[in-house]
């Protein structure tokens, strides 16, 4: 019995992703030993930052049985309008930047919630609509131009590091302080999903909408909480992106929704709702980031990358979906 438990644990979804990550890292390191360095780890963390926030929000929404493809557009809208307004009114405060950006995101999240919760529009279509609306609005407002002068105090955060390490040949690699935010978020969301009534409600709504309603859960309110909270967090992710890249671009986040959904699904969250974990999602993000950042180190030419990433996503989602199907069909005791 104990051995079976052990086997189940070792063949769980999360562990499969771990195996793939280990094999891939060894492979990359074998071809290019420069991979095994502290700077690679810091770089990977840095590129995971925004995607982790997106993926955690996406995971909660997918667990609740919905989907959201409007994150990149909402984040772009929030970051651009925040920076633009702060420049216009000469406000130079970190707190204002974060709250303003979060507020814009929250407003968009509320619109999503209204469309999905109140009007019962299929989540994919509703969020495609909001995505186009938000993206169009920011493009019309900005005319496609980026803002490169960010308020100084906000810009200063990009130079704040959690810790820096100087390696043997004088190069300095540092870990940005912003990494604390996704780490905090991971712990918070893990706690909410696992130990609070709200978390149980989210799983219940995703597992079976009608059963949840009959069991007395206010489904509409749960959906409102999820979508608005996701909007708020995505807005903050937007301003984090501005700080990391040190400019405000109206559309360079666009297209990330695809990768985010792929990361969540590869991490073992079932697209039909009701299942998913924070650890799996973070591992999924790590895998996707490793693949999209390091294929060049394996000697795969640039123009094959989109295809390779697509292939990994298709295979990854097929495996997790097959596993889910197998579990669903297996005899229940």
């Amino acid at each position: 019995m104990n051995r079976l438990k052990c086997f189940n644990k070792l063949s769980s979804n999360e562990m499969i992703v771990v195996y793939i990550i280990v094999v891939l890292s060894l492979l990359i390191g074998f071809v290019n030993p420069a991979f095994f360095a502290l700077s690679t780890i810091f770089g990977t963390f840095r590129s995971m930052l925004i995607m982790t926030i997106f993926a955690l929000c996406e995971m909660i929404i997918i667990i609740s049985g919905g989907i959201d493809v409007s994150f990149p557009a909402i984040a772009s809208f929030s970051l651009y309008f925040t920076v633009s307004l702060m420049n216009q009114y000469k406000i130079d405060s970190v707190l204002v930047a974060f709250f303003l950006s979060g507020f814009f995101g929250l407003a968009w999240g509320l619109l999503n919630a209204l469309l999905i919760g109140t009007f019962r529009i299929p989540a994919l279509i509703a969020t495609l609509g909001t995505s186009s609306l938000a993206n169009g609005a920011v493009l019309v407002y900005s005319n496609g131009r980026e803002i490169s002068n960010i308020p100084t105090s906000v810009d200063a955060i990009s130079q704040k590091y959690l810790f820096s390490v100087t390696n043997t040949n004088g190069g300095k690699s540092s870990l940005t302080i912003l990494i604390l935010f996704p780490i905090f978020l991971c712990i918070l969301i893990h706690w909410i999903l696992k130990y609070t009534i709200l978390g149980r409600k989210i799983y219940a709504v995703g597992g079976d909408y009608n059963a949840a309603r009959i069991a007395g859960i206010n489904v509409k309110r749960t959906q409102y909480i999820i979508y608005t909270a996701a909007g708020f967090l995505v807005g903050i992710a937007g301003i984090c992106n501005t700080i990391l890249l040190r400019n405000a671009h109206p559309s360079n986040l666009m297209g990330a929704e695809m990768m985010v959904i792929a990361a969540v699904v590869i991490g073992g969250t079932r697209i039909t709702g009701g299942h998913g974990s924070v650890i799996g999602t973070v591992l999924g993000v790590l895998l996707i980031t490793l693949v999209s950042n390091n294929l060049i180190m394996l000697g795969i030419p640039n123009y094959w990358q989109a295809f390779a990433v697509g292939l990994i996503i298709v295979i990854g989602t097929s495996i997790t979906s097959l596993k889910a199907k197998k579990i669903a069909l297996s005899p229940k005791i």
Partner: protein
Amino acid sequence: MITLKNSFRKSDKNMVSLLAIAIGIVAIMTAITPEFLTGSNISSMAFQFPEFGILCFGMMFCMISGGIDLSLVGAANLSGIVAAVIITGMGKSSFSVIVGIAAAVVVGALCGLLNGYLIGQLQIPAMLVTLCGGQLFSGLGLAITKGPAITGMPNSVLAISNGSLGVIPYSLLIYIFVALALNFVLKYTVYGQQLTFMGTNATASRYTGINNLRVTMLTYMLSGIAAAIAGIIIISHYGSAKSDYGTSYTLLALLIVVLGGVAPLGGKGKVLGVTLSVIILQLISSAFNILRFNSFFKTLAWGLLLIVVMVVKSVNQDYSMKFWRKKL
């Protein structure tokens, strides 16, 4: 008179409202600017809409089956690229053009079959499969072209979207042919009926003995073929093939299909409705062009329109449900 009244009563409410919207747009735009109803504007509209109009039929079939196809643009570009590679590789003769077009259709069908297999056999949700499929197809297209566009299409290819038979463009003829063929398939074939049944209730259709897997694969194959035809018109329109042409068409196709009265959850949809809705969107798009609106403005307008249409439909449905409950 009575027959006219009857036929009006029988006709779909949705069609009537679509027709009213189209007439309304034309009336308003003619009032604003005389440029709108000129022959040159009408002919330029007729040249523009077939390429995304045909994509919409692919989306429509998938949506009737209860799924969705977000890989249309990727499949269209991939087929276009394959056609372009074959045509330029075989010396641009008219024989090579035929081979290229045939190969594009085969590639489109294969893309669709892959989607259909994953959806029908492995039971992965259509949304996820086609989202990933789109990435895969456009990635493959990028790998084939290695980045830059494939240029140098012979005149016979360029003629597909730029030439016309009398006043009717070839591309419009292709559109009409595809529309009629799909209308026939949907209304008068066993497959069309099975598709509607499956879209309405997949479990019930399985119990009545319909092979759901076969219907799903056929549907996505048809969608892939529609994408391939659109892909050929796209390379003819641009005079080149690239992996990121027409990226805005996915949302546009979704908007058109939903506006055209296809139920997002499956089981309902008409070729005529989608055609009317394609024409409406082309009218709006031309209106924006004439009024010199920024091209970014279109992105915003399509999003807004999609949301408004869905909200109106949702409110309408609630209202009619309440109405019927009262009546019963």
